[in-house]
């Protein structure tokens, strides 16, 4: 079975076009599901205050803090749900929460 192209399963799909038991074939398909749309509070990254201690990265429940060459980047807002744990854990006030998207 080829990997499921979940972009083709939409709210307009007819029942015959769903997979059996809604099974999803292939890995990493949740990347295409933008849970960031659920966000009501948004973390803001102040790169000038960040010491790259990386404490925020492992506590993120949605893996929404990308790391490149041992340095954290700005948030992945497609998937960040705005829980605020990163802002709480940051010792340098480099993350602040703002209302809304």
């Amino acid at each position, binding site marked *: 079975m080829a*990997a499921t192209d979940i972009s083709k399963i939409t709210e307009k799909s007819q029942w015959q076009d*769903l997979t059996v*038991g809604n*099974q999803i074939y*292939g*890995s990493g398909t949740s990347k295409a599901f933008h849970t960031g749309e659920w966000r009501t509070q948004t973390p803001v990254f102040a790169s000038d205050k960040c010491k790259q201690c990386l404490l925020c990265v492992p506590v993120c429940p949605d893996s929404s803090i990308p790391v490149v060459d041992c340095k954290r980047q700005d948030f992945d807002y497609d998937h960040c749900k705005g829980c605020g744990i990163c802002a709480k854990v940051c010792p340098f006030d480099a993350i602040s929460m703002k209302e809304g998207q």
Partner: protein
Amino acid sequence: MAIRERLSGNEAISFAIKQVNPDVMPAFPITPSTEIPQYVANYIANGEMDTDFIPVESEHSSMSATIGASAAGARALTATSSCGLALMWEELYVAASNRLPLALCLVNRALSGPININCDHSDSMGARDTGFIQIYAENNQEVYDNFIQAYRISEHKDVRLPIMICQDGFITSHAVENIELLEDDKVKNFVGEYNPENYLLNAEQPMAMGPYAVSNYYMETKMAQNTAMQNAKQVILDVGKEFGEMSGRNYGFFEEYRLEDADYAFVIIGSAAGTSKDAVDKLREEGMKVGLLKLRVFRPFPDIEIAKALSNCKAVAIMDRSEGFRSKGGPLGSEVKAALYDYAKNVTAFNLIYGLGGRDFTVEEAEGIYKELAGYVEEGKSFEEYRYIGLRGESYSVTRTGQKGSVNDIKSERV
């Protein structure tokens, strides 16, 4: 050459399980199904089969583990009865909606309360809308034969639904009867290997099972599931025919016993069909045209086929071995009456309750009901429906006289 044996229903289905040799069996004991995992565990300990047996701490867990094994790609099964099935409630729907072709050997027993270990159909009838295929047996031979057909039906690519193989607690499960068994190689050849296209332990193709489906997807998912249940009808017939060619014992949705020219008939499920057949034979000798429809497949429900088989009857008694608490009869009564309303309105149908919690149902009682049906049609006598057969004291019944479907002819203080 068939092997002649004498086995109880539990022994018969366990023997079939040994011959099929599925991959995984999680189970938790509950009377009267306890012997099934016990016998299977013995077979495994004796090296006669190599199924992985998982002792678990409850039926919630046994069905969960069966689902897990099936999702992983294994041919899986479990066994239970009564409150054990009730504790599986949530998982039954999960197994069906995830389209897992696992098997459940159900030994029918009354649900608590009051606590009672004996036979009725309240457990499986309660689970009738879970999405499981349900197949019932009259005797140990049918239990054995039904299990051998089970995976061929459930694993079919057009179906892929879990299947419940039901037998009557104690009456079938513990009574020893003569039985014809098939040779191991015949069974293995008939059932075949299970090679699912997609399964969780397939390293070549990772997959997700049971994802969240919000309002935008739930109804489409249910329609797909319902279509699979509809597809199961043809598969059940095809598998039954193929099994008949191999064994000489044919199976369809139901057995029609002396029904062809019958004026009066029963619709009945399970072991009490045997009791009722004795009454049919006796009354036929007296010249009464009576017959019986023994329903084998309750899910999917063969409504058109039932209506067709009963269409020439003058009056029918639908015999329920579970209470529906709609205050007017049981689930079999509801569904058969709906089928008759849709496709055979001319047939008068009454719904009666018998055998709850293991209450005996006798040949004499069956004879009496046939005679009452005839009295209603031929002599204009009244018929009390919704009543309990063999009850001490008066039932909550509604008396019907005259033509079917006329509210003016109902006589009851408690309509």
